[in-house]
Structures are given as C-alpha cells and as structure tokens.
C-alpha cells in the first residue's frame, strides 16, 4: 500500500525559479528565501519519497480560457517544462508516475471527483518554480543534470477564472486523494505539495496588497483547524489575502490529504516585494499512515 508521509506548502512565484536558474540564491535579498527551503530539502533527502503529488495551477501557459478545466490530473510518464515566453528552464524533463496517476483517476472518479485528464502538456511554473529547491536535480557522472530524485504527479486546479473550486471542495479533493493513495496496491511513499500564496495581489489599483497578520493566522489554522479555512468563501480570501492570494485553496487540498495527527517540522516566511513567500513542512505521525 502507498502511504502519505508528509505535506509541503510552498509559494510558486516564478522569480524563485529565475533566481535559482541564474545561481543568485546567495544574494542578501534572496538568501532568506533559499535558506528557508534547505530543511525541507534535507527532510526529503532523508525520507526519500517516491512521488511528490502537486496541487498547483497553470498560469495560462499549457491551457487557455477556451477550454479551462477545474481539476486536471497529468498521467504522462514524463512532462516537459512550459516555455512561458522567456525560453525553457535549464532543467531536465520531469518524470511522471503513470501507474499511480491512473489509479488516482480511477479512484477519484469513482469517488465522485470527475477530473479532466491530461497528457503531453508541459508543466507550468506553478508546479516547478519551487521543485529544484525541494528536490535538487540528479547529476550524472559527466556533471550533466539528468533527472530528478523521484516522480511528480500533477493535479492542476483552476484558480484563475471564476467560478473556481471552493475552499471546501479543495479540502475534500485532498481527502479523496488520501483515500486513493492509500488504496494503491504498490509500495510507494508519497509527499503531497500545495503551491501558491501567500498574501498578494497583482492586478488593479490594489496591487501590492499584503497581510502578514492574516498569513500567520492562515498557517496556524492550516495546521490546527483546516475546516475553518474550508468554510471560508473566495471573497473572504480575496479580502484577507489579496485577489491572487486566494490560490491558497491549493494548500488546503494538500492539508486535506494529510491525516489529523501531523507535526509541523519547519516554516519559513519571506515577504520581499509583492508576494509573501512561504514554505511549510508537515510530517505525518507514523501511527496513522
């Protein structure tokens, strides 16, 4: 049986990827962000999960509003990284896990989550902006980056075009993903990841809005009282965390996939310019896996 051993919440600001790829992680303005990922990377290196299951969103890169799925699961054995208009990232293609993804599709649809399925679509920075900070690419003997420590199963969530799935629906999706993972016949260790947030708004005159007090409260509720977050409406998230900050419903999907007994091992919060960038690591108690 497959087990979920932990969960990660992470911002997916594209600049994180850009600074990483340019090797500017040590600059004083960026070190507090990149240092904040190291304990998470060490934990992943120690626990060696087989799969990172991402709840992320596409930013109109692989998909467009002419056909816009609410939830979409990627089932390909491999994914390219989307060229979002400034060239591809210097990173190897991302390995998928078709067997687990097929099982998830079959179980989730049977569990009344009628997912869209995608193949051969490149993944957006919503998934891979923080990926090399969590899982540094593997390097072959000749020094070339040739892969990743494990596979990624991507679940894309519409957080761009209203009506978006509600916080409650994302929470329930996470719970259904947990049931589905736990019924997988193979022996796999899975870590769930929710990306996005925290507070930010990047459109209209309200651009630049942040709310650190709310961000802290959100992180506290995420750990101890996620059902309160699930009961909130999008307009509440927009008011408290900014219009684009409402994407934190994807963190709630991650939390829904975890059990009741979790331990927060690490948290980092860095608000530099426009988006409050956070990373959080939860570990499952062994007894409930």
């Amino acid at each position: 049986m497959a087990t979920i051993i932990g969960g990660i919440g992470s911002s997916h600001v594209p600049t994180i990827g850009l600074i990483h790829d340019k090797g500017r992680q040590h600059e004083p303005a960026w070190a507090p962000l990149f240092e904040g990922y190291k304990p998470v990377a060490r934990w992943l290196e120690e626990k060696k999960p087989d799969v990172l299951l991402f709840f992320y969103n596409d930013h109109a890169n692989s998909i467009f509003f002419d056909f816009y799925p609410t939830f979409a699961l990627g089932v390909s054995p491999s994914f390219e990284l989307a060229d979002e208009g400034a060239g591809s990232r210097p990173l190897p293609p991302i390995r998928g896990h078709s067997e687990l993804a097929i099982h998830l599709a079959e179980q989730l649809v049977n569990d009344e989550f009628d997912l869209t399925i995608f193949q051969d679509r490149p993944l957006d920075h919503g998934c891979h902006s923080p990926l090399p900070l969590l899982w540094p690419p593997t390097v072959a003997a000749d020094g070339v980056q040739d892969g990743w420590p494990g596979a990624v199963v991507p679940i894309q969530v519409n957080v761009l075009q209203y009506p978006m799935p509600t916080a409650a629906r994302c929470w329930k999706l996470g719970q259904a993903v947990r049931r589905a993972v736990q019924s997988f016949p193979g022996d796999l260790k899975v870590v769930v990841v929710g990306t996005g947030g925290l507070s930010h708004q990047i459109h209209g005159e309200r651009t630049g809005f942040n709310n650190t007090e709310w961000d802290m409260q959100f992180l506290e509720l995420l750990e101890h009282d996620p059902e309160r977050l699930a009961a909130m409406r999008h307009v509440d998230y927009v008011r408290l965390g900014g219009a684009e900050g409402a994407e934190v419903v994807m963190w709630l999907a991650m939390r829904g996939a975890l059990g009741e007994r979790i331990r927060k091992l690490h948290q980092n919060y860095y608000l530099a310019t426009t988006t409050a960038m956070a990373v959080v690591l939860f570990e499952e108690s062994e007894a409930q896996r």
Partner: protein
Amino acid sequence: MNPQLEGIEHIAGTYPFDLRTSIRALRINRFFWNLARKEHRDELVADPDQAFRRAGLSDAECALVRARDWLGLIRYGVNFFVLEKYARVLRVSNLEVYAAMRGESLDDFLKTRRVPDAR
C-alpha cells in the same frame, strides 16, 4: 451572482476574472496568450497593426495595447497572467507593471516594499 463572490464589489481596485469577462474579452486575452510563442512575438514586434488585425482586436482594444495602459487593460477584462506575456515582449518587468497599475513610478513603488533589492 457567484455565491463565493458576494460583496467583492466592495473591495476597491479588484477586478475578478469571471466568465462574463472571459467571454467578452476572449480575443484580446488570446492575443496576449499567444505571445508565449516566438512567432507571435516576432510578428508583434515586426508589424503591430498586422498582429492586431490577425487577432481581430477592436479599435478600442488596439488603443489600449498601443498605449501600454496596464490598468486600462485589466479593467477592460485582460487576465494578468496573459498580460504579463506582453510585458515580456516589451522588456518591461512585472514590478514596473505593478507600479503603473498603482499609478506610481517604479522607485516610489519599491519604497513601499520591504526588500526593494529582491528582483
């Protein structure tokens, strides 16, 4: 009315991208979306009028694009995540777009930020 968004009209300076907006502004959103591909970027740089025509933009839409009126485009119904692809073509940073939407210069906007060097 989307029950999840009741009361959003009281949050100033915020333009939820919903289906009414998406239907009305599909063509101009597609025009910007296409700029993720090199052939569309090259066409826009070489001959903007032809690029606008091929995208089927109205005169009002062309005027907003030509004026680089970031706030006007958002209020018209352009989604920020396709709009930023236009900023890449013009070599304008997102921080500059943010400042413009607030009606500020980049320097003044950065003065309001905790770590202005993080860019």
